[in-house]
């Protein structure tokens, strides 16, 4: 499973990777981007199965990146999970229908595992 992590904090990207590794999700290959623009560049060049995106980032934020992804017919069906400290009603309403879920920081391996299982129909993660 190729996972793209888009977060401006390198430490948070490490934290997400570590949590996924602890979630017993096998055969993960991680791609990392520090903002939405870098995320789009990686999408252009690589096969990605799941995108984990932060909202607040410099240069191009998570919402702008998601809007760009949804406009692109090649990869607009890649599932996107938003991982953020932000929990605002406005943001969640705006993203409804564009993303498959919202993970609020801090997250646990168990929560990640069940969310990824839900997204992949049980192929990855635990039910």
């Amino acid at each position, binding site marked *: 499973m190729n996972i793209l992590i888009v977060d401006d*904090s*390198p*430490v*948070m990207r*490490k*934290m997400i990777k*570590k949590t996924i590794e602890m979630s017993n999700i096998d055969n993960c290959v991680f791609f990392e981007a520090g903002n939405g623009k870098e995320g789009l560049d990686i999408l252009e060049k690589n096969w990605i199965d799941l995108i984990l995106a932060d909202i*607040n980032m410099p240069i191009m934020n998570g919402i702008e990146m998601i809007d760009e992804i949804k406009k692109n017919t090649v990869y607009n069906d890649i599932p996107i999970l938003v991982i*953020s*400290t*932000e*929990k*605002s*009603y*406005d*943001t*969640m309403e705006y993203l409804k229908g564009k993303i498959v879920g919202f993970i*609020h*920081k*801090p*997250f*646990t391996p168990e929560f990640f595992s069940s969310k990824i299982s839900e997204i992949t129909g049980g192929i990855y993660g635990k039910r």
Partner: protein
Amino acid sequence: MGKDDKLYITAANVFANLVFLTPIENNLKNENEFLNFKIDFTGEKNGYMIMKIEKNLLEYINSIISDDKNDIKECGKEILNIICGNILSETFTDKKRFKLSPPIFVEKLDIDAYNFSCSTKIFFEEGSVYLYCNLNK
């Protein structure tokens, strides 16, 4: 529940979920060097949060998250960012939008120069953390 208790519970949950740390009642060890971090927020209310965390504790947390010792300050910033995001969501409703500024490392902190509406301290085996929050600027 008072603001201090709410801050304690929210922060303790962040440490438990993020790095599996459970608070202890009291830290009988001598406290060592502290590292300080600050984050500002704007929105329904403006304010700031300051975290004073014992270096030993932050080094331990960083070792769980990262294999690079140099990430320690970034790790502190990220923890404060998460605690602040959570306390704002807990204190106000999810319908209120807040903008968090990027957290900063504060080299020298004069804690008396700030006003706080709530504060708490949490003890862990690995060290202590103090949190101060101003929600009423």
